[in-house]
C-alpha cells in the first residue's frame, strides 16, 4: 500500500529531503543589529554613513545653541544680546505667566490652574482604559501632567513664586483622583461629570460670578496655553459626537436629514479653516440679535468645532462603510432597533477601525488652534509671537528661543496623543488579532 503511494508520487512533490543549511549567523545583539540594519548592502551602508554625518553636523550646534551657550537667567534682554550667546531661556522664564494665562489677572491664576487640574483628573479617569488595575498608571499620569504643566514648562522659579497656591491646587488634584478611584465611580458617571458638570464649573470659575464673589474676568483677557487647550478640547469634545451624527445622517434614508448632512459636510469641508474663522468672526454677529452678539472667544470656538465636525463625519463614514452588511442584518435579526443597532453593533466596530484617522484629526485640530490668532484671540502661539516683540527683550536669538519653546509644547501634546491612540488601538483590536 505504502509502496504504491510512493510510486504514484506526483512530480511537483519533492522526493528527497532538502540539504541542511549552515547555522544562521546571530540575529540578536548589537553587532548583529549593526550588520543587518545599517550595512546590509553597500547602498544602505552609504545611507547610514550619510545620516550619521548629518547628525554629527547638526547635533553639536543645536546642543551648543540650546544648552551650552544658552542664557538661563537674566533680569532683562541685555545678557541675551551679547554676541555668541545661544537660546535665551531667561526670556521664557520671565514671560511664562503670559504664555500660560495671557492677560488673565495674576491674582486669579489659581482659577485657571484649578480648572486645568480637575479637567486633567477627569479626562485621565475617562481615558485610562482599565478601571482598577490602572490605578498606578492613573496616578502616574496625574502626577505627570501637572508636573509637566507646572514644573517643567515654567521652570522651578514660577512655582517658587506662589508655592502655597500651586501646592494646594496640586493637592486638590491628587485628592480628587484618589476620591474617584476610591469611590469606584462607573465610567458613565465620570463622563456625566466631565461633559455636564465640568463645563459649567469651567465657565463659572474662569469667567467669574458675582453671586459667588468671584470677580468677572472677561474673555478678552483670556489667553495663552489655557486658551489653546480650551479651543482644542472644545473642538475635540464637540466634533466626535457631532461627527457621528453627521456621518449617520449622511447615510440616512430620510431625505432632509441626508440633505442637511451632505450640504453641511461638503460646504464646511470645501472652505479653508481660515475662511470658517473669518465667517464665524464677522458673519455670526450679523445673524443674531444685537443682545446675543457672541463673545469674541466663542466665535472661533464655534468655527473650530464646526470645521472639525465635518472632517470627523467623513472619517467616521469611512468606518461605517467598512462594516459588512451582515453585521446590520444580524443586528436586525436579533430585533435591535436603529439606535441600539448603531450603538451596540455598528459604531463600536466602525470607530475602532478609524481610530488612527480620528486621532489624526485631533492632532491636526490641536495644531490648527493656532489659527484662531488671526481673529484676535491670544492663543499660546500668539502670546509667544507678541512677547517676542517686547523691546525690553528683543534680540537676535529671542525669536528662535520663543518658537523652539512653542514647538516643544506642541510636540509634547501631539506626540502624547499619538502614543495614546496607538495604545488604544492595540487594546481594542486585541480580539481580532489572529
Amino acid at each position: 500500500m505504502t509502496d504504491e503511494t510512493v510510486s504514484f508520487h506526483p512530480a511537483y512533490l519533492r522526493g528527497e529531503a532538502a540539504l541542511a543549511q549552515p547555522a544562521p549567523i546571530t540575529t540578536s545583539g548589537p553587532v548583529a543589529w549593526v550588520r543587518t540594519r545599517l550595512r546590509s548592502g553597500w547602498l544602505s551602508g552609504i545611507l547610514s554613513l550619510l545620516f550619521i554625518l548629518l547628525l554629527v553636523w547638526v547635533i553639536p550646534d543645536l546642543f551648543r545653541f540650546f544648552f551650552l551657550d544658552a542664557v538661563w537667567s537674566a533680569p532683562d534682554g541685555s545678557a541675551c544680546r551679547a554676541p555668541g550667546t545661544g537660546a535665551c531661556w531667561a526670556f521664557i522664564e520671565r514671560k511664562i505667566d503670559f504664555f500660560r494665562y495671557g492677560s488673565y489677572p495674576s491674582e486669579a491664576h489659581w482659577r485657571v490652574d484649578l480648572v486645568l487640574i480637575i479637567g486633567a483628573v477627569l479626562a485621565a479617569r475617562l481615558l485610562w482604559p482599565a478601571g482598577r488595575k490602572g490605578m498606578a498608571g492613573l496616578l502616574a499620569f496625574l502626577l505627570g501632567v501637572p508636573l509637566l504643566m507646572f514644573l517643567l514648562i515654567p521652570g522651578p522659579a514660577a512655582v517658587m513664586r506662589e508655592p502655597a497656591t500651586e501646592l494646594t491646587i496640586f493637592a486638590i488634584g491628587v485628592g480628587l483622583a484618589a476620591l474617584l478611584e476610591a469611590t469606584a465611580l462607573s465610567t458613565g458617571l465620570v463622563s456625566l461629570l466631565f461633559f455636564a458638570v465640568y463645563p459649567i464649573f469651567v465657565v463659572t470659575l474662569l469667567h467669574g460670578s458675582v453671586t459667588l464673589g468671584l470677580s468677572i474676568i472677561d474673555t478678552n483677557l483670556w489667553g495663552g496655553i489655557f486658551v489653546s487647550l480650551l479651543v482644542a478640547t472644545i473642538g475635540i469634545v464637540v466634533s466626535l459626537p457631532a461627527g457621528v451624527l453627521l456621518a449617520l445622517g449622511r447615510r440616512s434614508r430620510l431625505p432632509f436629514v441626508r440633505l442637511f448632512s451632505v450640504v453641511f459636510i461638503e460646504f464646511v469641508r470645501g472652505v479653508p479653516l481660515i475662511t470658517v474663522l473669518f465667517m464665524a468672526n464677522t458673519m455670526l454677529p450679523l445673524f443674531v440679535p444685537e443682545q446675543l452678539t457672541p463673545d469674541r472667544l466663542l466665535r472661533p470656538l464655534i468655527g473650530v468645532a464646526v470645521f472639525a465636525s465635518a472632517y470627523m463625519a467623513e472619517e467616521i463614514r469611512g468606518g461605517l462603510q467598512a462594516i459588512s452588511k451582515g453585521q446590520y442584518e444580524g443586528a436586525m435579526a436579533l430585533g435591535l432597533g436603529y439606535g441600539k443597532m448603531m450603538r451596540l453593533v455598528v459604531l463600536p466596530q466602525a470607530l475602532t477601525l478609524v481610530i488612527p484617522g480620528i486621532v489624526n484629526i485631533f492632532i491636526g485640530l490641536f495644531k490648527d488652534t493656532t489659527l484662531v490668532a488671526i481673529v484676535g484671540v491670544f492663543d499660546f502661539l500668539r502670546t509667544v509671537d507678541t512677547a517676542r516683540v517686547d523691546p525690553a527683550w528683543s534680540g537676535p536669538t529671542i525669536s528662535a528661543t520663543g518658537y523652539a519653546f512653542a514647538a516643544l509644547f506642541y510636540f509634547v501634546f501631539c506626540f502624547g496623543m499619538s502614543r495614546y491612540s496607538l495604545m488604544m488601538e492595540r487594546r481594542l483590536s486585541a480580539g481580532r488579532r489572529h
Partner: protein
Amino acid sequence: MKRFVATLVATAALGALAFPALAQSGSKTLEQVKQKGFLTCGTNTGLAGFGLPDDKGNWTGLDVDLCRGVAAAIFGDPSKVKFIPLSAKDRFTALQSGEIDVLSRNGTWTQSREAELGLLWAGVNYYDGQGFMVRKKLNIASALELSGASICVQQGTTTELNMADFFRTNSMKYEGVAFADINEAVKAYDSGRCDAYTTDASGLYASRLKLVNPDEHVVLPEIISKEPLGPAVRQGDDQWFNLVRWTHFAMINAEELGVTKANVDEQLKSTNPEVKRFLGVEGDFGKGLGLSKAWAYQIVKAVGNYGEVFDRNVGANSSLKIKRGLNNLWSKGGIQYAPPVR
C-alpha cells in the same frame, strides 16, 4: 421651483433680520459706553511702544494710553477699558460694526479711509514716516548721501515704492534688496548684506533692538513719506468724535501748560487762567463733551501729558528711544499742536 422660491423667501427673511443689526451704528456712543460701564478699544495685536501686553498681560503703549485717557475722561478711571486686539484685516470692520468704540491701532490717516470707509480720524498721536537706518561707521549724516547704497526692504509694500520715488526725485542710484518677510530683511541688514535698511521710522527703532549691536547703528533724520497715525471713530456721532479728539488735545495742552501726572494736584491751585480753565477750576468746559468739568484733570491724573506718554512708551524712558522729532510740540520744533481750551 416651489422649493427654490421658498428658499429665497427664507434667505430674504434672514437678511431682513440681520441687517438692522448691521445698520445700528450707535449715534449715541457716549451713552452706550456709560451704560456698559467701560470703553471698548481696538488695539494692535502686538506692536512695541504702541500696543503690547507686558509680562503680566497688561496692555501698554502710546495707542493704549490714548484709550486709557478716554476712559479716564468719561469714568475718571483709566482701567475701565476693554482692549480688543485686532488684526490689520478686521480692524475697520470691527469699528464699522460697532463692536469697538474707538480704534487706536496705529492706523494711518488717509483720504480714502475717511472718504470710503465711513470713518473719521480724531487726530494724530504719532507722526510716522519712512526713514533709513545705517551703520555708524559709514559716517553718513543724511539720507541724501546714500547714493549707490544697497538697501534692504520688505517686498511689495508702499515702503518699496516710496524709496524708489525718493531716489528718483533726488536723482540718486541705489540697489534695492527685497525680502518677503520683514525679519529676514532686518537679518540681512545685520549680517552686512545691505548698507541701509528702510521701513517706517517707529519700526526702525524697534528693529534696531533686534540687531546684534544696536549701538552701532543710527537712524537718519530724513523722513521720506507721511504716515500720520491716530485714533479713528465711526462717522455720524460728532459728540463722540469730539470727545476722542479732545482727549488727545488735552494731553498736548497739558504738556504745553506744564501740567504733569505728578504735579496736576498742585496745579489746581495755579493762578494761570489757562491752567484754571483746563483743569476745570474755572468754567465748565467738559459739559459740551458730555463730561464733567474735571475731564482734563482726570486724563492727566491717569496717564499724564503727551510728552510723558511719549517718553514712557516710545521715547527716552523706553527701550525704543525714539526722538520726539515731528512729534514735539509746535513751540519746540515739532508739529503737535492743539487748539486752546476756552
